[in-house]
């Protein structure tokens, strides 16, 4: 059974039918938003059952769309929190990515701006490495990008998509070794992205992120994870009732290779490791439960099949 990420949008009336259906089919609801009288469900469902969900959702005026970024956590790396970079373009991009299902976090660097003075500290590096993908939003000058990029990518192990003012060919030329993705002509600007050409540029960023996500998913498929992150999320939600007391919008954030649990590490790490998944196999047996650099959260890194020799 292959689970694919989709988004369901429909009215609040009888939406629990859809939630039950997804769960009965063996799918998982990753995020649920209720906005006025509308419900948005970001979920993983079996590929062969999408048509069934569509058929049942039809009388409820619900629609199911592909959302390749559901179940990913993306770091939008802004060079600073100053007016120069916020709210445009950093927030525009972070928000656009969120609309199609990704959980995006903005990571702003303490010493990101400038040419010679730009730097990346260990906390920033570790926080970026906790994500599935990093989208670097750089400035308008190729001279500066060429100079500072080696410093800013040092120690980053996740795929990086580089966005900058120069065109894509120039970005490719000035960066060595190459990045995983490039989007040119998106540097620093100080106006809201609302014109059609600007929105096309945002779509281009989404397309590039999707391409890199698909590539990573293919790599994971070759050596599958011991347990699906979405399944772990469901299990933790069931076995650890305290998670319902967390006020964060996504107390359990699903990633491609694990998940972030927004509970204090010191109190909850040991009980989390001891949660039984199936047949006496515990979370601690198939995953590393480590402290996150983001606040005092817990990070669950699921081992692949090649390390544990089991897939649950």
């Amino acid at each position, binding site marked *: 059974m292959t689970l694919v990420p989709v988004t369901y949008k429909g009215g609040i009336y009888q939406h629990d039918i859809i939630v039950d259906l997804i769960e009965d089919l063996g799918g998982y609801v990753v995020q649920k938003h209720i906005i006025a009288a509308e419900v948005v469900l970001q979920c993983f469902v079996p590929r062969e059952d999408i048509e069934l969900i569509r058929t049942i959702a039809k009388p409820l005026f619900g629609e199911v769309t592909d959302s390749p970024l559901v179940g990913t956590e993306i770091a939008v790396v802004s060079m600073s929190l100053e007016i120069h970079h916020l709210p445009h373009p950093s927030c525009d991009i972070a928000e656009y990515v969120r609309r199609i299902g990704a959980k995006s976090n903005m990571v702003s660097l303490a010493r990101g701006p400038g040419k010679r003075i730009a730097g990346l500290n260990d906390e920033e590096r570790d926080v970026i490495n906790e994500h599935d993908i990093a989208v670097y939003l750089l400035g308008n*000058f190729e001279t500066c990008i060429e100079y500072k990029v080696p410093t800013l990518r040092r120690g980053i192990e996740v795929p990086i998509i580089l966005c900058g003012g120069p065109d894509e060919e120039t970005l490719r030329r000035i960066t060595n070794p190459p990045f995983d993705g490039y989007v040119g002509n998106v540097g620093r600007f100080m106006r809201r992205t609302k014109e059609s050409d600007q929105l096309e540029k945002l779509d281009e960023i989404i397309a590039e992120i999707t391409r890199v996500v698909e590539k990573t998913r293919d790599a994971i498929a070759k050596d599958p994870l011991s347990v699906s992150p979405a399944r772990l999320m469901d299990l933790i939600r069931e076995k650890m009732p305290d998670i319902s007391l967390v006020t964060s919008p996504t107390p359990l954030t699903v990633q491609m290779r694990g998940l972030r649990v927004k509970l204090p590490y010191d109190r909850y790490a040991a009980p989390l490791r001891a949660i039984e998944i199936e047949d006496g196999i515990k979370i601690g047996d198939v995953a590393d439960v480590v402290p996150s650099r983001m606040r005092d959260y817990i990070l669950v890194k699921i081992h692949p099949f090649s390390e544990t020799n089991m897939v649950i």
Partner: protein
Amino acid sequence: MASLEYFEVECPERLGGEYYRQITNDVLLDHNLLKVIEKLHIFIDPKVPVFVAVGTLRKITTIVQVRDFANVNPLEGKITLVLSEETYLAPMLKRFWETFGKDHVEQPDRFTVMLYDVKATPGEIEEMIVADPSESLFKDLIYAFRCIAPEGFRLRQEKFSREKFSFVASENTIAEDIDTVIAEKFALIGVKP
């Protein structure tokens, strides 16, 4: 930028220059400074790196008086002011409190202010100056150029006068011969430094 007589962005990187032209346009428009600046020349060299902006200013004589945004109606020992906009409400109230005392000033709602037992005539009240936008002009201009200049360029040198201004920003110590560069750029807009 139709209201500027001259506007140029000079940069060795063509595309970077175009982006900065757009940024300058957006920032000046957002801060409502287009009508203040007459000529503007920006020079950016990311290799050095340095950002230089030189320009001339228009004469601003617009002081804001009570009559510009309020109707003054005298009636039976009290004067009622009906406001058409509340932008200058706070400085106007402050001025009234200073002049007449808080006991004589009342504000029943957002757009109405009443003055009781004041010695001033309605004409005098209409002519009271409540704000002078030119007071904060240099502050606004410096803030706008800080927004326009690349963020990492944190070492700055600003010279603002009633007629002209220069703004230099860099990441490194500003070169000793920067005045020569400023003079060159002023020459391009036909101004003697």
